[in-house]
Structure formats: C-alpha cells, structure tokens
C-alpha cells in the first residue's frame, strides 16, 4: 500500500496498445429455458480496471464464472490472456486469479497454511513458498493472525486472506466478484486501495459490483449488465452523463399541504398515497434553499425532507426505464 490514489481517468492510458487481457464476443449462457447471458461483447485492455455493474441476478457472477473457466459458455468467442477459453483452459488458469463472492479459504487451515497450500499448487519452489507467504501476510496485515485457523477470522480479514491467496501465483489478470459486498466502510476502503495498488503494478482487474460508487472510484471502464445484456458501456464520466440528477423527496403531514405543494411545484414525481413528492434537484445547498423558500412563501408546511443523490437505481432508471429487477423499494409514478 505505497502508491497514492490516482484518479481513474488518468490510468486509461495504455489502453489499446497491447492485446486485450480479456475479449468476449457473443457470450451466451442459459440454464434450461432461462437465459442468463444473452450475447455479451466486451474488451478489457491489459493493465486496466473493468467494472461490471448490475443488480443481483443480472448475470455478473455467471460472467465471472465463465471467464475464469469455472463453468462453460453455451456460445461465444472468448479469449483470456490471449488463450481460447474452451481450447486452452489450463493456459488461462495459469494466468488468472479469482476471488469470488463466497469466501474461498480453507477454514480448518491457518492463514499461513492457506497461503502455503496455494504456493504448493502453484508449484513454487521450497524456499520461494515460505518467502511468498510471509510477504503476503505482511502486505495484507495478517501477520498476527498467521497461525490462527481461518475460521476465526473477521469478514475483512477473511477477504484479505482470500485475495492474498489469489495473489500467490502472481496472476496477470484478477477476477474480483463483488469484493466488498458485506464489508464495513473501513474494510471497503482498504480493499479499494489494495486494488489500486495491484493495477499500479500492471495487473488487469475484472471487477463486479452492485455499488455505483465502487465502480466510479476504481474503474477505467464500466459496463452495465441487466437481464443478461449489456445496456451501457463507457468511462465513469460517460455513464454519469446518462444519469439524471438526484432529487429531493418531500413528505407532507396532510393531503391539503400535499395538494398545495404539488400545484406549486408543477413538474414532479407524485406519490398520492404516501403524500410524498420527488423534486428533481442536483442536491446542492442553493437549490435546496430555493425550494424551501418557494414553499415557505406559499405557506406550505413540509413534514420531512430527504436529499437523494444519483445511484445505481438512477442509472437503471435512466438506461432501462424501470427499477432494477430485484429492487422492491418503490414503483416510480411518472
């Protein structure tokens, strides 16, 4: 953890110069009559971070499982690290590392034994294996817990050990399937820093996440996956231009106040049952003050107020015209 955080945009440099680390064309997968991936095309240049963003059930994990040789695609021309996935799976396996959503550590072994197990399976020499394990334990702040069974580790430690195990073989491409899901904010930030350091060292990262912020913080390019299709792809800045601004949500104590406010504000999203209005806004102090002044001048009393900044839901709303499939929070009324 030595390098300073670099803004993602400046890292997109080498893109296109070398052969891509990952290239998929027409990737398809279905289970029975349920189509999980319906023709995915993507290219990940070497040395960059690519984020696959989408809600639960969009097909993110299936994509990672296919690209990391865990399951077979039904169709598609797939190349990882320059090797064809179906013809040379072992050559691909030798070049990649995978840290999945589900912890892939051996609970009965200690942290150190887990790393030595990986070193043995990567066929590192007798002396190198100990050295590599010690190095990774130090780098991931696991030295104190090195001789304790992994079953006793906290969520954050477990995730760090998991990633350390992935790094034992110095993979050129790393797949991270929701690397920060379930982590507390501090552990999440330390994981982000680890990922940035890896890319600074020349590794290519393929990341899946449900969090727009995470993709925004880390990725050079983001692809949006919904119902097995890529609905958008671009740099974080390009994608954000597609997202409408946030809104301010107002809740009113009585139907009279609610009706008055709705008349006053005009073009807003109404929820007549809950007596709430969603007013488009950039969430800034000025627009907030202006809105409240407007309501004050008309003597309309607001019960509760919340500021809503753009998030994954908004991206989905903008790009698919509906809420993410698994979101059960609210139905927009337009």
């Amino acid at each position, binding site marked *: 953890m030595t390098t300073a955080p670099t803004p993602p945009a400046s890292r997109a440099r080498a893109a296109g110069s070398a052969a891509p680390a990952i290239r998929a064309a027409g990737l398809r997968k279905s289970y029975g009559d349920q189509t999980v991936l319906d023709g995915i095309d993507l290219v990940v240049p070497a040395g960059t971070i690519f984020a696959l963003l989408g809600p639960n059930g969009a097909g993110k994990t299936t994509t990672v499982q296919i690209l990391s040789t865990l399951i077979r695609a039904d169709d598609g021309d797939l190349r990882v690290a320059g090797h064809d996935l179906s013809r040379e799976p072992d050559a691909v*396996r*030798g070049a990649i590392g995978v840290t999945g959503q*589900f912890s*892939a550590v051996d609970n009965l072994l200690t942290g150190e034994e887990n790393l030595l197990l990986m070193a043995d399976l990567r*066929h590192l020499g007798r002396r190198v294996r100990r050295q590599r394990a010690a190095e990774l334990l130090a780098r991931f702040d696991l030295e104190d817990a090195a001789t304790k069974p992994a079953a006793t580790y906290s969520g954050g430690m477990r995730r760090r050990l998991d990633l350390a195990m992935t790094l034992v073989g110095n993979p050129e491409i790393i797949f991270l399937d929701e690397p920060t899901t379930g982590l507390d904010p501090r552990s999440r930030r330390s994981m982000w820093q680890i990922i940035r350091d890896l890319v600074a060292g020349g590794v290519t990262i393929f990341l899946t996440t449900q969090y727009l912020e995470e993709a925004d913080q880390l990725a050079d390019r983001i692809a949006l996956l919904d119902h097995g299709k890529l609905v958008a792809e671009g740099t974080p800045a390009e994608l954000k231009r597609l997202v409408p601004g946030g809104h301010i949500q107002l809740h009113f104590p009585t139907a009279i106040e609610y009706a008055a406010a709705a008349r006053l504000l005009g073009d807003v999203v109404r929820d007549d049952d809950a007596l709430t209005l969603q007013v488009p806004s950039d969430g800034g102090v000025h627009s907030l003050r202006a809105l409240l002044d407007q309501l004050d001048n008309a003597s309309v009393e607001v019960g509760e107020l919340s500021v809503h900044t753009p998030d994954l839901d908004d991206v989905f709303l903008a790009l698919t015209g509906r809420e993410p499939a698994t979101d059960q929070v609210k139905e927009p009324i337009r």
Partner: protein
Amino acid sequence: MSTVSHTFSDSATMLRRNLLHMVRYPSMTLLLFGMPIIFLLLFVYVFGGTLGAGLGGASGGRAEYLRYVIPGILMMTLAAVSQGTAVSIAMDMTEGIIARFRTMAISRASVMTGHVLGSILQALIGLTLVIGIAVLLGFRPNAGLTDWLALIGVLALISLALTWLTVAMGMASKTVESASNVPMPLTLLPFLGSGFVPTDSMPAGLRWFAEYQPFTPFIETIRGLLVGTPIGSSGWQTVAWSLGIALLGYVWARRLYDRDPSR
C-alpha cells in the same frame, strides 16, 4: 501438459491438506472409529457366547466367536471410514475453496485423490486400532509375516475401492446430510455376508445374495490371512471386485467433478 507432470505433486499437496484437516478436527475420526469398536464389544460380550456356541468349533463360546467376527468388524471399520469420506467431500464441495481449485492450473483429480489417500491412511490407523483392541480382548491371530503384509495390501485395496465409490457418492449428494446416508448400505453389507454368522445358516434367497456379494470374498480372504482358514477363490475375487469398484467409483467421481458446478 503441466497437468500431467504435476498430478503427483498436486495429489500429495491435497493429501497434506486432508491430513491437516484430520489433525485439526480429530473428533470426526474418533467418531468413525468408535462405531466398529462398540460393535466389536457388543458382538463379543453380548451375543458372543451364544453365537460362538452355534459355530460349533473346538473350544466354542466367546473366544471362538471373537476369532470369527474380527474380519466383519474390520469391514465395518472400512465402511465407517468411507462414510466419513463421503461426508468430508460433500462438505468440501459446499466450500468456496473448491471453486478456487477449479480455476487453478492443477491436476483435475487431485482434490479427490487427496481425499482417497487420506482416507486410506485413516482406515489403516483405524484397522490397527481395532486389531489392537481385539488382541487385548484375547484374539490371537496366527498370521506369519507374509500373511500380515498380504493383509495390509488387501485391506488397502478394499479401502481404495470403497473410498473411490464413496467419493463419487459424496459428490453426487446435494447435501452433507444425504452424503452421510447414501453409503449406509456399506455398513450393512458385512451382516448380509459371512461377517457375523456363516452363510450356510441363512435362508436360501439370502444365502445366495450373501455368497455373491463382494463383502463375502473380502471377509473370507481376511479371515484366511488372519487365522488360516482356507481362502480358495476368495483371493482373486477380492482383487477383481476391488479393482472393479475402484474403477467405477473413479470414473463416476471424475464425471461429477468435470460437470459444471451448479450454484
């Protein structure tokens, strides 16, 4: 290419992993050994007097029955250890680490081979323990050095067969619970053979089954090596059955491992 050349070292690595598991989690091993030991005590002290009289040997009674029942108890030990193998591989398959192994350039069968070799070692320890307890109870085998060596070989071979079969059963099980139930018949088969009473005391249909199921030649071969009863054709039948079951288990397990994991 690398897969072929690393098969041996990967299997050894996985064996070390399984041995570490046994050391870290000894209660599972002790539980597996407990069952045959309890059956040994039960059959010798509770049923032994009566069953031994029925054998009609020279001395008769409990001591005679102890001599008779050892091979059946040894088979139960192997069956118990194999059942443990099914459970531990089913538990393994629910863990994320197996997904990690699948995405690494390692020998495909090594995960299973590690389990099989670990279980054979575990079985040999259990068998030694059971024979040791039998000796304490008064069992006096009259096997020579070559008999002992042949006995170790035969038991390891049968163990190899049963473990590959139960590895496949464990892989085929959707849950850990069903993995512990599916190999149950293996524990019962010694009863439906010559393990606890001679087959000629059984009714016709059962006797026919008892004479043709694999545990009867297993038991007769072991009995012959331990106490010197005639082995006859049981020897080659044991080798043939063992190799057949091992091959079947191996092919089945490989097919299950190579199919896409469903999550």
